[in-house]
């Protein structure tokens, strides 16, 4: 009986998938399910909660701090992702050319991505310091400004500063992935295009971009997910200040759930991030992977 089962392809397939399925179940499905469930309770750290239905969500929707954090998160994600994409693509195209010391330059480009975020965030914290910023210092010495820039003390300055730090960290990831994509494009396409008299811009628009779209879809999905759920950078730079202007949903969720002990509310806030993340994934899955787009045309 057992021998027969073990000779059955389907059964064997299931058996081999079991460990992975168990891993996914224990380390992904269960925590996610538990987190979502906690969002519907009034659990505190150290006290099991009781079911309160949508109460947490109702409160958060009306809570000005939570609303602000949603706005901040969207702004942070959209602004940083667009710039990361443009800069990343640009950098990838540059790196794809024949430049001296190519592999060394490529390795150097990856550095910001390799440095642990907590450490690079501390460096940015000093760069943005209200009293010690080397940026402000240089600009005052050059006579361009007469007082230090309040990078993290003014709501909009702080948002832009945080976005800039995130871009610095995120560009290498985008660039290197797109570079890998660029290298899969066969040079014969470019030869054919130039024989037909295509300008460099036309080559980019009708050869590079369409063939790169699948990679762009994957890379940007990841980039958006990472940015949307960013925590470390903000926690080191501002902890959500000034006036909660840089509080992301992830940092506010931590502040409420762990520091404040309101596990249920924090979980609810984290759960509220899921629809946005799903939307980002759906967009890339159904949109960017469309054959029509990849072939350089629009929807007909």
């Amino acid at each position, binding site marked *: 009986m057992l021998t027969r089962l073990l000779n059955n392809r389907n059964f064997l397939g299931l058996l081999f998938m079991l460990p992975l399925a168990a891993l996914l179940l224990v380390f992904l499905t269960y925590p996610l399910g538990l987190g979502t469930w906690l969002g519907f309770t009034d659990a505190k*750290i150290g006290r099991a909660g009781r079911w309160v239905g949508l109460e947490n969500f109702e409160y958060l929707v009306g*809570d000005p701090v939570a609303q602000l954090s949603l706005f901040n998160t969207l702004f942070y994600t959209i602004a940083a992702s667009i710039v990361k994409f443009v800069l990343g693509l640009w950098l990838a195209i540059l790196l794809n050319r024949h430049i001296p010391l190519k592999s060394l330059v490529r390795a150097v480009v990856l550095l910001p991505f390799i440095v642990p975020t907590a450490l690079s965030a501390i460096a940015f914290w000093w760069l943005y310091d209200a009293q010690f910023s080397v940026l402000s210092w240089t600009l005052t010495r050059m006579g361009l400004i007469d*007082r230090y820039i309040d990078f993290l003390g003014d709501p909009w300055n702080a948002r832009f500063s945080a976005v800039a730090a995130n871009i610095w960290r995120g560009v290498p990831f985008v660039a290197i992935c797109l570079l890998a994509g660029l290298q899969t494009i066969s040079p014969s396409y470019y030869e054919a295009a130039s024989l037909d008299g295509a300008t460099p811009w036309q080559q980019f628009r009708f050869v590079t971009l369409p063939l790169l779209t699948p990679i762009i879809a994957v890379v940007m999905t990841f980039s958006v997910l990472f940015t949307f759920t960013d925590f470390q950078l903000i926690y080191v730079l501002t902890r959500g200040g000034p006036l909660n202007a840089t509080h992301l949903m992830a940092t506010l969720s931590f502040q409420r759930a762990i520091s404040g002990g309101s596990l249920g509310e924090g979980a609810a806030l984290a759960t509220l991030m899921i629809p946005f993340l799903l939307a980002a994934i759906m967009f890339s899955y159904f949109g960017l992977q469309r054959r029509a787009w990849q072939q350089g045309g629009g929807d007909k």
Partner: protein
Amino acid sequence: MSHTDRRKFLATTATVAAGAATGTLFAPEAFAQAAFSAKPETGAKLRVLRWKRFVAGDEEVWMANVKKFSEKFGVEVRVDNEGWEDVRPKAAVAANVGSGPDIVVGWFDDPHQYPDKLVDVSDVANYLGGKYGGWYDVCRKYGTREGKWIAVPLGVIGNAIVYRDSQVKAAGFDGIPKDTAGFLKLMQALKAKGTPGGFALGKAVGDGNNWAHWLLWSHGGKMVDEKGNVILNSPETVASLEYAKQLYETFVPGTLSWLDPSNNKAFLDGQVSLTGNGISVYYAAKNSPDPRLKELVADIQHARFPIGPVGKPTELMQVTQMFLFKYSKFPNAAKALLAFMMEAEQYNPWLQASIGYTSQPLKAFESNPIWTVDPKHTVYRDGAKIMLDHGHAGPLGYSSAAAMADYIVLDMIAEAASGSKSPKEAAERAHKRAERYYKV
């Protein structure tokens, strides 16, 4: 028959009453002679979780004291250190799952979040209170619940105004004014002289919360009344916010972004003439090899925060407490350790090694030499004596902890001070947020 009965009855009651009287009157005296009596279980082993030291001497002496305890009672003690902000969630989880360290050295109202999981340590606390001049009122509030001690207060991380004497003098003031009105004038004068002060308005857990609560309370504003009803949106609160607005105009730029270390850095660099902080700024200057900082040492002075219209001190500082979980297999050994660490032979050297960073919860330790060896230490002696608890004037528990962790008061003051919201609006918004946590 009935007559004798009554006489007998009277006699008995008299004896009982006398006994009770002697008991209450002389018990502390009797205790004072003997050491705490809990006998550790044989083969006991203890695990202690405490916050990671702020000054090196603290940990050295603490561990030496623990070693002395182990040798004296034959109890093995393991001490784990965690970053000070990580102790709170870890202790809460230990309470929830019913296993973990026997003793936690935690913060603020931690014990009030799971009082039923903690061992009643009234015997230890009463013994120590009787022997060492009694607990300060604020320590009693932090340590007790419904008349029972659920924690033994270990100390208070002191906070005070730190200022540059020469710059305050140059602004025309001899020291820090004792009242908020005079203090505003000083801050304005400092600003006019080009040597402004500043207090943290970013998410500074310690420095930010400390001065923000002082400001609110100094004008009579309170988050809740004695019963825990939210009364934050009051004329007193608005008055404190108006004051905050005027004060903020005198600050050095950038205070909205300040986290805990920011004011230390700015002060030591000579960019801020006055701020609120622990004794760490002074020690950083004193222990620095940098000659520029050495020069600063003589100029650094400490003072109490000024008193507002309420007419009494209204400061907030960090209270740290030791508590013992019911799941501990060796409660007597743990109690013995709690008492041992607080005995003068151990506590005095520890307090001294903490160089004024920590101050005492028991009145007798006011006479510790650390407070007089350097006159600049003395201000930090009176932490527990003058401070209020962060849940003031309401009860301690989940609500008070969550409200402070969500920076409700600090956000309100930052909003009003920076002018991003009017004082009235800021008070209304904070009131709504506070109601969320105090609704239970």
